[in-house]
């Protein structure tokens, strides 16, 4: 920065940067090169409206940082950062078994690999095999045979190896 003059244009530029980036503070000490930036906390909006519909996470990814996901029967899924959720990637009917008189694909305690089929979801007369896509042990099943499931609904919790 120039010694003599405050550069209004530069300040405006800095303000734009702050706005675009949600910065709360920019501090620049030119002599001895100090820069101090502070970003705003994400806006805490006091009251978003939560529908009674299930809260759904988009990916069949580890549930770390996920709190109080509610499944469609309304019961709260306890937070356990170490567990991985398997969610329905489509709307349809959940089948736990390959055929009515077979054993279920998996049950609580069943070890799974990424390629293990955990259930079938029927959508538009097509049977879609759903794979675990993770390794571990099924610790909880949330849906019963023949139940309708929606997109993103939690099907199983897996404890990773």
């Amino acid at each position, binding site marked *: 920065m120039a010694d003599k003059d405050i550069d209004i244009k530069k300040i405006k530029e800095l303000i734009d940067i702050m706005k675009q980036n949600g910065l709360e503070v920019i501090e620049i000490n030119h002599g001895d090169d100090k820069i101090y930036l502070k970003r705003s906390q994400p*806006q805490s*909006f006091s*009251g*978003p*409206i*939560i*529908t*009674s*519909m*299930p*809260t*759904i996470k*988009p990916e069949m990814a580890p549930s770390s940082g996920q709190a109080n996901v509610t499944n469609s029967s309304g019961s709260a899924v306890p937070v356990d950062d170490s567990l991985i959720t398997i969610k329905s990637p*489509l*709307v*349809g*009917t959940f089948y736990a078994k390959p055929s009515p008189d077979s054993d279920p694909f998996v049950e609580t305690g069943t070890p799974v690999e990424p390629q293990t089929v955990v259930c079938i979801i029927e*959508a*538009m007369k*097509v049977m879609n095999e759903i794979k675990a896509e993770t390794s571990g042990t099924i610790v909880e099943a949330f849906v019963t045979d023949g139940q*309708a*499931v*929606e*997109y*993103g*609904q939690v099907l199983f919790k897996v404890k990773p190896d």
Partner: protein
Amino acid sequence: MFSKILIANRGEIALRIIRACHELNIEAVAVYSEADKEAPYLQLADEAICIGPADCSKSYLNIASIISAAEITDVEAIHPGYGFLAENTEFAQICGECGITFIGPPVEAMKNLGDKVMARKIAKQAKVRCVPGSVGTIEDGPEALKLANDMGYPVIIKASAGGGGRGMRIVHNDISLRSAINSARAEAEVAFGNGDVYMEKFIVEPRHVEVQVMADSKGHAVHFYERDCSIQRRHQKMVEESPCPILDKKTREELCGSALRIIKESKYVNAATVEFLLDKDKNFYFIEANARIQVEHPVTEMVTGHDLIKLQLQIASGMPLTLTQKNIKLNGVAIECRVNAEDPDNNFSPCPGRITRYIPPGGFGVRVDTHVHQGWNVSPTYDSMIAKVIVHQKTRTEAITTMKRALGEFIIEPIKTTIPACLEILSHNLFVKSEVDTGFIERNF
């Protein structure tokens, strides 16, 4: 009558359909993407099913997901609203194959009217004047040149499968014609996967006038008069009104009669809008028919007193239209303004965000159709329309005054909306005199 249907849409039209269902004692199943999961209208629905992530193509346009949702909720029919799958013939066909009633026209009628070349053929069979133009698709060559010279410049090149201005070119002389045809074809190919284009006489400064029609499955059809939707910005309607302020009784009867003939000729069932251009000498030319309910249907509801969504549901369930044409009367004037989350000062770019203060207008003659409220987050993912304000008054002058009053008291903060732009339009001398055409916005703002 149906006992349970699914609504394959979102936002204000989903809420609109839920309301009609409940007034007819029909259970309504709403579907939603993850982006809409907080929407209060989902709580008004009898059931709500998440059908996918925010991305439309994976949720509101995801046919498999919607059909599957319809199957697991065991509905008898699907109402597609407008936009999304409303004019998707594949979707309508799959509904039929799955034993679910599509609340809209038969697939065949939808296909015929959806194809603009076919629609022109139907209009000609119905003895309705079209804009002079090519009999079918055209290509670059001497035939196109001859045709353009026969009908006289200016002419316009349009995509057969098109809409919204894409694949469209206005041409004023022979030299421009070749390149216009070729570039329009290329653009249409990209936009619609179909490069067919056709040529029409370009009507100078026309009004956009459209007729609301409803037909039942027994072949009985009625019209609900016309709407004037000339106030458009880049082919997006901003302000709509009914009736068209400059039509005389005789022209109105001819116009509405023409629309009915096209609907009957195409063996259409359910709600449709037949669109015309009206030139300065009050000649009207058929341009296209929309095989769905439209955004601006409330203006027609206000002046006729008939609930068009309820009629759609009744007709789709197989009930005959009990209305006869003489039961349908024009009463006063209605105007609709679309409130979009857009910044008029910044070329109408979308302006999403959380609404932290919201006070809707009310009182005599004011109707508000909206899914938003204080606390709603306007998503950048979907259409920017967040509310429709509709007014109904005895005269056009009073309707304009009431609309200005209503928009003036509508508070939506902090996002920018088209309210100031609508207020400017309503105050414009030419709008007040109704000396407008589809180029009004481009020329005056």
